[in-house]
C-alpha cells in the first residue's frame, strides 16, 4: 500500500541542532502569513507520522546568521484537543509526538485587534514550561482602530517577551525571530517531553480567563475607531434573503470556474499526455512493456493530472473565501440545511469539493472536528456528482436521450443531466441522514464558530496555499491512483488473447473473465456482459469506462470526449432501458478505486472503505434495477 510522506525534519548540518520554534495561535490570527514571513519559500509540507494532519515546517536565518526550524501548528483556542488538528498542536507543543522534538520556544501569534482569548491561550502555553514569545500581529490594524496597547506592561504582566508585527508586510518579523532565538538560547536544553501539563477544567479556564481579562483591561484600551466595516458587510452577507442569494451566486461562480476555466488547461494536459504517449510508443517495440508504459503508467498519470486544473481552481476559491473571512459565514448560512441531514455546517466544504472530485472532498473533511460528523461527511461525499462522471453521462445522454425540448423550454438532455446531479445530491444527504439519525443516534456536535473580521486577501498567502494543495493532491492521490491504474492495467491486459483471436483483447483478460463471471449478477439490472466488462477498467477512474467501451465495441481511439461513432454504436447495441439503468448505476456506484484508497488513508482503516463500497454497490444496484424494470415495463426494453 502506498503511504503518505511521513514527517522527517529538514536535513540538518551535522553537529549543532538548530533551535526549534513552534507557532501557535487562535484561528484567523495571521499565523500562516507569519509562517511565510519567517521562512520565505523554504517550506516543507508533509504529514505527521500516522495521522492525516498536515505538518508545515520551514527554516529561517536571521541577519546575524542564526538559523532555526519553524513549525506551523494548526490554529486552536486551547491546548485541549478536540479535533485531530488540535491533538497535533497539543502533542507537538508538549513533545509527545513520535519522531518530533519538543520545541525550544513557542511563539504565540495573536491578532492584536482581538486579544482577549489569545491572552488566555498565552497563559496556558506559559504553564507548559517552555519559553513563550507573544507576537501582536496585525498591529497596523489595531493602530488604525485606535486601540492603544501597552506592550511593555503586557510583557511584564504576562512574564514573556511581547513584540509587535505585521506579518503580511514583514514588519517586526526579523525582531520576532531574534527574540524567539534569544528566549530559547537563554533557557536550558529542551526536555524530551513535558509531563507536567494537564487539561484545564472549566474552573481553571475561568480562573485563567479572569487573569487574562484583568491584564487585558489594564493594558489594552478600547478601540476608539472600532471596525464597523465587518458589521456592515455582515448586514448584507448574513441577511436571511440577500445573504442566501449571494451565497448561491458565489457557489454558481465557483462551479462555472471549475468547469469552464479549467477546460482549456485540461485539454492542454490531455494533449500533452497523448503526445507523450505517442512519442514513447514510437520508440518502444510493440508488446507488453509498451502497453504497460503507455496504457498503464502514462495514461494513469495523465488521468490524475487532468483533474489538477479543476482541483487548483476549486482550492483557489475555497482558500480565497477562507482568507477573506467568508467561509465561516457560508457555514452559518448553510448550517440549518446541512443540519437536516445531521451534518455540520462546515460539511458543505467537503461536499462542494466533491463536485470536482471526491478525493479533495474526502481530504477537506478534516475541517470537521467531531469524528462521527467527519465520517458521515466522508461517506456521503462520493455520491456528489464528480467531474469524472460527466464524461460518462455526456456520452450516454448523447447516445440515447433525444435532443428535444420538453414543455417548449427545457432541453430534455439538460434535464436528464440535471436529474442525475440532483439524484447524487439527494442520495448524499439521505446517506448522511441515515448514518446520523438511524445508526448513530447521538445528538450532533455543537456548531460554535468564530466569525473573523473581513480582510483583504493576501494573494501571496493564498497562491502559496493553493500550490501546496496541488502538490499534496499530486503526491498523495497521484501515487495511489498510479498504483491502482497499473493494477487495473494488469487485470485488463493479462492474459493476452490467444492466437487467431477474433474478439477484442480485453475479452480474454482477467477483466473479461470477471465481467462474464458477474454478468448473471448484473443481468437483472439490464447490463450485457460487454457493459459488465467495461465496469472493471472503470474502477480506475470512472471515465476510463468510455475507453473500455470503445475497445469492446472495437471503435478506434480510446480517448474520452465527444464520441459520435461510439455513441451510435452504443445506441445500436443497448436498449434504452439498459442505458438508463447504466446512468442510474453511475450515480451511485462505487466506481472509483482512488476514492476508496483515500478514504482508507483518511479514516485509518479498511472498515470505512469497505462499508462505502458495500452501501454504494447496494444503492447502485437497487437504483439500476428499479430504473431498468420501470423502463422495460414502459416498453423501452
Amino acid at each position, binding site marked *: 500500500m502506498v503511504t503518505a510522506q511521513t514527517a522527517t525534519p529538514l536535513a540538518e548540518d551535522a553537529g549543532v541542532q538548530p533551535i526549534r520554534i513552534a507557532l501557535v495561535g487562535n484561528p484567523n490570527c495571521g499565523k500562516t502569513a507569519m509562517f511565510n514571513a519567517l521562512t520565505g519559500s523554504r517550506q516543507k509540507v508533509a504529514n505527521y507520522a500516522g495521522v492525516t494532519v498536515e505538518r508545515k515546517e520551514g527554516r529561517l536565518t536571521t541577519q546575524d546568521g542564526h538559523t532555526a526550524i519553524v513549525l506551523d501548528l494548526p490554529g486552536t*483556542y486551547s491546548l485541549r484537543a*478536540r479535533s485531530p488538528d488540535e491533538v497535533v498542536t497539543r502533542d507537538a507543543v508538549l513533545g509527545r509526538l513520535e519522531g518530533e522534538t519538543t520545541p525550544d520556544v513557542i511563539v504565540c501569534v495573536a491578532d492584536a485587534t482581538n486579544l482577549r482569548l489569545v491572552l488566555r491561550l498565552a497563559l496556558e502555553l506559559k504553564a507548559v514550561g517552555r519559553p513563550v514569545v507573544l507576537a501582536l500581529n496585525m498591529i497596523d490594524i489595531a493602530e488604525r482602530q485606535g486601540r492603544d496597547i501597552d506592550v511593555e506592561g503586557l510583557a511584564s504582566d504576562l512574564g514573556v517577551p511581547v513584540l509587535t508585527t505585521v506579518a503580511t508586510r514583514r514588519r517586526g518579523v526579523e525582531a520576532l525571530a531574534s527574540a524567539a532565538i534569544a528566549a530559547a538560547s537563554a533557557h536550558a536544553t529542551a526536555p524530551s517531553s513535558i509531563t507536567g501539563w494537564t487539561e484545564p477544567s472549566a474552573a481553571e479556564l475561568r480562573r485563567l480567563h479572569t487573569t487574562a481579562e484583568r491584564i487585558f483591561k489594564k493594558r489594552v484600551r478600547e478601540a476608539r475607531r472600532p471596525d464597523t466595516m465587518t458589521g456592515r458587510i455582515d448586514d448584507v452577507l448574513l441577511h436571511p434573503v440577500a445573504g442566501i442569494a449571494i451565497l448561491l451566486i458565489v457557489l454558481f461562480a465557483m462551479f462555472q470556474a471549475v468547469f469552464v476555466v479549467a477546460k482549456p488547461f485540461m485539454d492542454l494536459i490531455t494533449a500533452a499526455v497523448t503526445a507523450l504517449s505517442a512519442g514513447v510508443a514510437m520508440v518502444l517495440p510493440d508488446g507488453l512493456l509498451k502497453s504497460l508504459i503507455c496504457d498503464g503508467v502514462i495514461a494513469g498519470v495523465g488521468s490524475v493530472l487532468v483533474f489538477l486544473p479543476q482541483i487548483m481552481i476549486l482550492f483557489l476559491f475555497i482558500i480565497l473565501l477562507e482568507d477573506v473571512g467568508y467561509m465561516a459565514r457560508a457555514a*452559518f448560512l448553510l448550517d*440549518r440545511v446541512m443540519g437536516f441531514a445531521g451534518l455540520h455546517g462546515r460539511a458543505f466544504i467537503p461536499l462542494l469539493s466533491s463536485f470536482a472530485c471526491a478525493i479533495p472532498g474526502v481530504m477537506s473533511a478534516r475541517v470537521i472536528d467531531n469524528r462521527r460528523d467527519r465520517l458521515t461527511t466522508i461517506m456521503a461525499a462520493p455520491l456528489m456528482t464528480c467531474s469524472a462522471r460527466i464524461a460518462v453521462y455526456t456520452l450516454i445522454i448523447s447516445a440515447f436521450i433525444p435532443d428535444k425540448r420538453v414543455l417548449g423550454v427545457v432541453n430534455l438532455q439538460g434535464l436528464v443531466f440535471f436529474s442525475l446531479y440532483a439524484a447524487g445530491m439527494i442520495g448524499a444527504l439521505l446517506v448522511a441522514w441515515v448514518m446520523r439519525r438511524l445508526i448513530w443516534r*447521538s445528538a450532533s456536535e*455543537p*456548531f460554535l464558530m*468564530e466569525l473573523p473580521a473581513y480582510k483583504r486577501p493576501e494573494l501571496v498567502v493564498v497562491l502559496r496555499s493553493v500550490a501546496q494543495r496541488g502538490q499534496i493532491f499530486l503526491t498523495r492521490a497521484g501515487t495511489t491512483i498510479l498504483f491502482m491504474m497499473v493494477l487495473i492495467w494488469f487485470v485488463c491486459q493479462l492474459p493476452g488473447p490467444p492466437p487467431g483471436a477474433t474478439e477484442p483483447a480485453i475479452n480474454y483478460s482477467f477483466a473479461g473473465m470477471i465481467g462474464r463471471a458477474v454478468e448473471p449478477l448484473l443481468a437483472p439490472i439490464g447490463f450485457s456482459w460487454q457493459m459488465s466488462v467495461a465496469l472493471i477498467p472503470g474502477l480506475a477512474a470512472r471515465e476510463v469506462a468510455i475507453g473500455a467501451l470503445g475497445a469492446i465495441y472495437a471503435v478506434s481511439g480510446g480517448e474520452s470526449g465527444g464520441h459520435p461513432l461510439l455513441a451510435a454504436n452504443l445506441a445500436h447495441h443497448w436498449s434504452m432501458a439498459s442505458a438508463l439503468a447504466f446512468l442510474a448505476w453511475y450515480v451511485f456506484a462505487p466506481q472509483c478505486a482512488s476514492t476508496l484508497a483515500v478514504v482508507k488513508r483518511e479514516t485509518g482503516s479498511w472498515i470505512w472503505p469497505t462499508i462505502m463500497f458495500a452501501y454504494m454497490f447496494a444503492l447502485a444496484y437497487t437504483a439500476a434495477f428499479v430504473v431498468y424494470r420501470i423502463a422495460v415495463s414502459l416498453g423501452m426494453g
Partner: protein
Amino acid sequence: MSELCRPNDVALTRETTLADGRRGFSGVISAVSVQDDASHALDPEELERRLLEIGFVEGAKVKILHEGFLGRDPIVVSLDDTRVALRRREARAVMVRPDQA
C-alpha cells in the same frame, strides 16, 4: 445554579438564556452552565469548556446580531470584540442579564 433561579428573586428572574433572545437582544453574561439533558453530543463539562474557550464567560457583553433563515437558527452574536456563530441549542447554556431598555 439552582439558587439563582428562585422565582421570587426579582433581580435575578430578569435573567434569560441567550437562546430565547431575538435579533437585537443584548446583555451581560451572568452564568454559563450546561444542563445535562442528553440533547448534546458532548458531556456538559466539555461543552461548557468549549463555550468558555471561545469567549462565553461571565461578565462578557453579548448581543444577537443575526438570525438564520430557517427557524431563526443558528444565531450570530457579538461577544465583546468578537463575533461568534452558534445554534440556539448551545445558546441555552448561556444565561444573560439583559441591558436596560
